[in-house]
Every structure is written in structure tokens, then in C-alpha cells.
């Protein structure tokens, strides 16, 4: 499996194909459709990452020393971005996630979506994923 760096490079390459924002969004919309549906039981407030404008539900499971992420959002473009995040971060070890530098977000022009303005939960989502990773990492070391 390709590592986090490589996947990010892949994504950046994919996005260089697009000439304008509408194409990029179209692609994100496509990606949103492929996002594996999160188990209904996780679409509850406990799993909700609060954001002002769109809701994001996130679940993390730990299997074979790897973190498996599933998520959903009520907004489609947000969901597309989530799909990218999951492609990069899911099925990784806690250490990989902790150390991940998510440059691709900036490089494909989505940095804005992580600014404090965009209260759409993405920034909180990344924070939450990193927190999961730290927690599983600590657990691992204890065992």
C-alpha cells in the first residue's frame, strides 16, 4: 500500500488536471458518492463533529494495529473532502496519522476549508482523527 506522502502526491496530481473551481468541485462531488456509507449507528450526536454550516459524523476503529475511519456529512462537497481525507488517513497506524503533514489540502487549494472561517467541521475532523490516533497509540504502548 502506498504511504501517506504518496497518496497525497497522487491526489495533487489528480487535481492539477482541473482548470477551474467548478471542475474541482465536480470531482469532489464524484468522490463524495464513493465514500463508503457510515454505519447508521454512528450517525448520532455522539459522533458528530460540530460545525456551523455542515455536519460531519466520524467513527474510528482499531484493527490489526491500524485505524479504520468512516465518516459522513450532510453537505456534498464537504463529503468529497472527507473522502480525500479518508483516502489519505484511513487504514494507517496511529504513528503514521500522528506524524501526517496534510500538505495536499493546501496544494489542491482547499486550505480555506481549514481556516477558522469555515466552520464546517473539517478542521475539527482532522483534530479528532489525530486525537483518536494519539489515544490508540497510547493504548498500544500500554499493552
Amino acid at each position, binding site marked *: 500500500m502506498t504511504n501517506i506522502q504518496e497518496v497525497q502526491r497522487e491526489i495533487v496530481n489528480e487535481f492539477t488536471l482541473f482548470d477551474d*473551481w*467548478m471542475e474541482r*468541485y*465536480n470531482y469532489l*462531488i464524484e468522490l463524495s458518492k464513493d465514500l463508503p456509507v457510515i454505519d447508521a449507528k454512528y450517525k448520532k450526536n455522539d459522533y458528530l463533529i460540530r460545525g*456551523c*454550516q*455542515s*455536519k460531519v459524523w466520524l467513527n474510528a476503529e482499531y484493527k490489526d494495529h491500524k485505524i479504520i475511519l468512516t465518516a459522513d456529512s*450532510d*453537505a*456534498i*462537497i*464537504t463529503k468529497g473532502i472527507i473522502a480525500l481525507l479518508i483516502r489519505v488517513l484511513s487504514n494507517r497506524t496511529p504513528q503514521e496519522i500522528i506524524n501526517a503533514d496534510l500538505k495536499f489540502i493546501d496544494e489542491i487549494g482547499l486550505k480555506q*476549508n481549514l481556516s477558522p472561517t469555515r*466552520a*464546517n467541521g473539517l478542521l475539527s475532523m482532522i483534530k479528532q482523527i489525530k486525537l483518536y490516533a494519539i489515544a490508540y497509540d497510547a493504548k498500544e504502548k500500554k499493552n
Partner: protein
Amino acid sequence: MSFDIDKIRNDFPVLGEKVYNKQLIYFDNGATTQKPSPVIEIINKYHSKLNSSIHRGVHFLSDQATNDYEDARKKVAEFINAEKSSEIIFTSGSTGSINMLAFSFGEKFVSEGDEIIITEMEHHANIVPWQMLCERKKAKLKIIPFNDEGILQTESLSTLITEKTKLVSVIHISNTLGTINPIKNIIEIAHRQSIPVMIDAAQSIQHLSVDVQELDCDFLVFSGHKAYGPTGIGILYGKEKWLENLPPYQGGGDMVDIVTFENTTYNEVPFKFEAGTTNYIGAIGMAEALRYIESIGLENIGKYETELMHYATKKLKETGIVTIYGNAPEKASILSFLIDGVHMADAGMMFDKLGIAVRVGTHCAQTVMQHFNIDGTVRASMSMYNTKEEIDYLCQTIHQVKAMLS
């Protein structure tokens, strides 16, 4: 006077900017308006040639700044037709004004069991300060509801008022629904029971003529930055008889008369309420903005903005895929809507990339959203410098957004 839209647009340098290589369309005027050149220039001039602290100086610059600051106060008084300029207090903004009033009025007049009445369509700035006061004083907040059209149920006010009611505080124009509330009527009803009324004019001062003496309101607040002026400055108007009787809000320089550790006496109104170095450059910039409004004519502005609102409403409805929240017959140029089946956040992101600045979310009016049981809306709030062409482009874009997102 004719309304020369090209000239007006030329007065606002930011309108010439591009975002993402698209001509900027600024429809976020409810949040803050852009600044015309005279305002930009006077601030510039102040910073480059005149800056000096006011009131306490005995030198030329300080005299000049003080005079200009006090002239700004007179300009504001004139603009809302206050009886005296000492009834004008400079604050940090509408929020600062309401908090000042809630504290000072609350300290003096509100005790356990008392009631404050607001409406269901308030901006958070006219909810939370009263909630905080009510919590501190064990008082109660009561609500005038609105109906699904966004019309305030004014008739309920007389039944809400009891002998425990101490103040009624009402938004003049809803920043979310656009509704222009019948404040004159509300003030009359409250005054019949001798209850003072505060008007939140943050969205109305730049749109229609507000005459505090004719309205007979007891207090009125608004912000500089929503009326083509700078940030960090706002107004609390209060009738002299009230201001004389309210305790100060903040303590510090300029608001005092004699300070000793044993006892401190306060300066006269309005200085009693202006502690510390005020934002005098903000005040001077704000007065310049009001002068700019006058140079165009508030009546012309209101007429034009209403025309834009009617046009936009018609056009939005014609798309066939938009639900508008707030359909009161008396409405300002604020349009809240959702594209059917499209999440507001998705819509907002697309509008942005197409050069259109709209606001998406609850617009600091969560109780309005709760009324309609929605998470928020897209809001296009239009100003004197917006055009029908911009509205046309917005409507085109709505189709594009809809096509992509569903």
C-alpha cells in the same frame, strides 16, 4: 436627486476587486458594508496628519481631534434627530451598546422576578446580554413570536407585558428575515404601560430614516461598520432622562470627575459612559459615512434597495428551486433562502468560487432557524451599490449550483 449607481460604485474601491479571477459581487452587507472613499480618506488623513488623544490635551492636535470627535457626535445626533448630542454615546458597536445598556439599566432597574421582553427574531446581540442579565438578577426573558411569513405577532405584546416588565427590546429590521418591524406601534403599546423600549437599528439605520424623537424610543443602537463606516465604533442613543439616571458601565479615564480611593464621582452625560480613550478616529469615520449617506439621500437609498429586494425576490422565485425565509410585506433588502435539496454549505462554497460573497449559516439568529427547524440559510443582503445584473448572475448561479449538487 437622481441615483447614479455608477458613481456610487466608483466611490467604493473594493467593488472593483476580483476574487478567484471573477468580478467580486458583494452580497454580505448585512454582516458589514464596504467603505466609500471619503471614509477611507478621512481615516487616512487622521492617521497621517492629525492623530491625537482627545479631551485631555491642551495642544493643537488634541483640540482638533476633540472638536472633530464632538462634531461627529453632533452629526450622529442630527442623523437620528436626537434632541441633544449628549444623548449620543460612542461605543464599540451595537453589541457593545446593548451590553452597556443591559448592564447599566439592569443594575438600576431590574431585580428578581422582573421581566424583559424581546422578540423571536433577535440577533444574538439582543438576546444574550439580556439572558446574562436575567441570570444575574434572576429575572425573566419573554418573547414576542413571529409567524411563518416572518411577521412579528405584535398583538401579543400587550398580553406579555405585566407589571413586572421593565424593558422591551426589539430589532428594527431582522438581519435574517429582512422584516421591518412596526416599532412605532410597539413603542406606543409599551409606553402605554410606561415601559421603556430599546430599538436595535443595526440593520435599519443605513436603509431608512430613523427619527428617535418621532419614534419616541428610549434607547437605540447601531454599528458604524454596517453603515459604511469603520469597525470598532457604534452608538447607544438614550433619552437624557434615562442616561442621567443610569449608572456607568465601564470605569476609567474621562468618565470620572474626582477620583479618590475613598470615593469617585462621575463626569456628566455622555462622558460618564465613555471610559478610556475612545475610538475617536472610528467616530470621525462614522460621521463621515453618515455624511456620505446623506449625500446620496437615505430616501433614494431606501427606494433603490427596496427595488433591488423586489427584483431579487421575483427572480429567486422564478428559479423555481428556491425557498425564501421571511416574506413579510414590509421588508428590507435582506434575502434568506435555501436552494431546494442543496446544502447551504455546498451552495456557499460554490457561490464563493463564482465571485459571489453571501453569508451561510444562522446569521447570529439561531432562534429564527429554530422557528423554521432548519440549520441555517444562504443570505444575500443588498446595499445601495448592488445591481440587478448582480442579482441576475446570482440566479444563474443558483441553477448551476443546483445542477451540480443534486
